[in-house]
């Protein structure tokens, strides 16, 4: 099936979705930032620094969400060999790395006032740092082979193996008593956060998500085109490679 898979359908779909996600991103982020940075109250104990949360938490969520997407795509690519899945994984990685990086930076910026330290080898922090390295490793690996399909497979395996890290990040706060505070928004049952903070937080979360979708679609599209070009060049290179002297 591998050589007969056809990108045309995907391209058509992307063309339809893209404008909507793009617009949604702008609106959601706009509203979220306004509510978060201006309209919402400062925290009674954390003061203004609480506003870091509106970037920190969504980027943390997306950092993990991207990786889950990547791992899923990798599974599809390995099992069904669907070429599109490879491209999705490849395209998702840098975005996720970006989110994770932002989460780490905002986190440690926030940690300075809250915990009096930029960094601690706390379970969640460590696992998040490892997530970043997993992204970097994935990106390095996928480009490290002369044969792109081979690179994609190797990277996919890494992505799957690294997936254990996600639940660790998520639940580390519950398993070990960490510096980092446990889930309050994503707690099952009623969230234990004041709506004035919850609403902008969720808006930002949605905005980040649509942003992710938009960029992902764009990247996959360009990957497809690149692959086509490569294929053409290869067929030409090898065209008569097997006959001696012309």
């Amino acid at each position: 099936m591998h050589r007969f898979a056809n990108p045309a359908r995907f391209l058509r779909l992307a063309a339809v979705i893209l404008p909507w996600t793009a617009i949604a991103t702008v609106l959601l982020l706009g509203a979220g930032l306004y509510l978060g940075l201006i309209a919402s109250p400062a925290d009674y104990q954390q003061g203004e620094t609480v506003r870091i949360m509106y970037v920190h938490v969504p980027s943390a969520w997306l950092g993990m969400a991207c990786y889950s997407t990547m791992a899923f795509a990798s599974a599809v690519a390995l099992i069904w060999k669907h070429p599109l899945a490879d491209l999705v994984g490849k395209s998702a990685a840098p975005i996720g790395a970006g989110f994770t990086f932002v989460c780490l930076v905002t986190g440690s910026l926030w940690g300075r006032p809250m915990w009096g330290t930029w960094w601690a080898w706390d379970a969640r922090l460590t696992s998040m740092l490892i997530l970043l390295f997993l992204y970097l490793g994935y990106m390095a690996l996928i480009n490290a082979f002369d044969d792109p399909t081979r690179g994609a497979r190797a990277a996919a395996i890494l992505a799957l193996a690294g997936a254990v890290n996600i639940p660790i990040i998520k639940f580390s706060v519950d398993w070990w008593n960490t510096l980092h505070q446990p889930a309050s928004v994503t707690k099952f049952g009623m969230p234990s956060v004041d709506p004035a903070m919850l609403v902008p937080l969720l808006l930002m979360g949605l905005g980040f998500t649509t942003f992710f979708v938009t960029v992902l679609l764009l990247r996959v599209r360009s990957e497809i085109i690149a692959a086509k070009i490569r294929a053409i060049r290869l067929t030409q290179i090898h065209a008569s490679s097997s006959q001696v002297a012309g």
Partner: protein
Amino acid sequence: MTDDIPTATFSAENLACVRGERVVFAQMDFRLSSGEAVLLLGPNGSGKSSLLRLLAGLLKPASGHLLWDGTPVLDDREAHAARIHYVGHHDAIKPVLSVLENLRFWARLHDPKSGDATAQAALETMGLWRLAEVPGKLLSAGQKRRLNLARLLAAPAPVWLLDEPTVALDRASVKVLEGVMAEHRAAGGMVVLSTHADVDLPGAREMHLDDYTPAPMDVSEVWI
């Protein structure tokens, strides 16, 4: 040593092989029953080694399936591995291990019950028994190749996949190999052999790999 092999068929329909994003061959049908042999011919780069690796299960076909008595082989890799012996371009000989150690390792790995007796018999057939204690690094090219071929005898398996096995062999050894292959087929074994030289494989079906090379410029097909 390969007496108790039941008749079986090893077949494939509409095989296609893609390497480095490029279609090496496509729409290849393939069929082999006990006692038969196939001779792979074709210019360099036409895909002989690729086909053999594909039959061995090292490569996954881009399309088509390999069937053993009608059941897909990739369903049970171990079972398939137990059925085949693959001799590739590399001799897989450790320079610091003695000839016997090298052979015994591979034999045991293929069939844990295979004893030293069979190993010795194999080395004798290949005219290496006198070198049994010599470390691999001291072997000449042909001696290395013979040691590699000795694996075929040290642990029985119905399907032999041989990639240019006569390389570096002197004429006498080529004769020995031809004899061994005949014996193997007489006992119901199968042989797939790629070569550029002349190998005497009576009644073998010839496959010219270049017949299956797809026409260069069909981009729509090559889309990965």
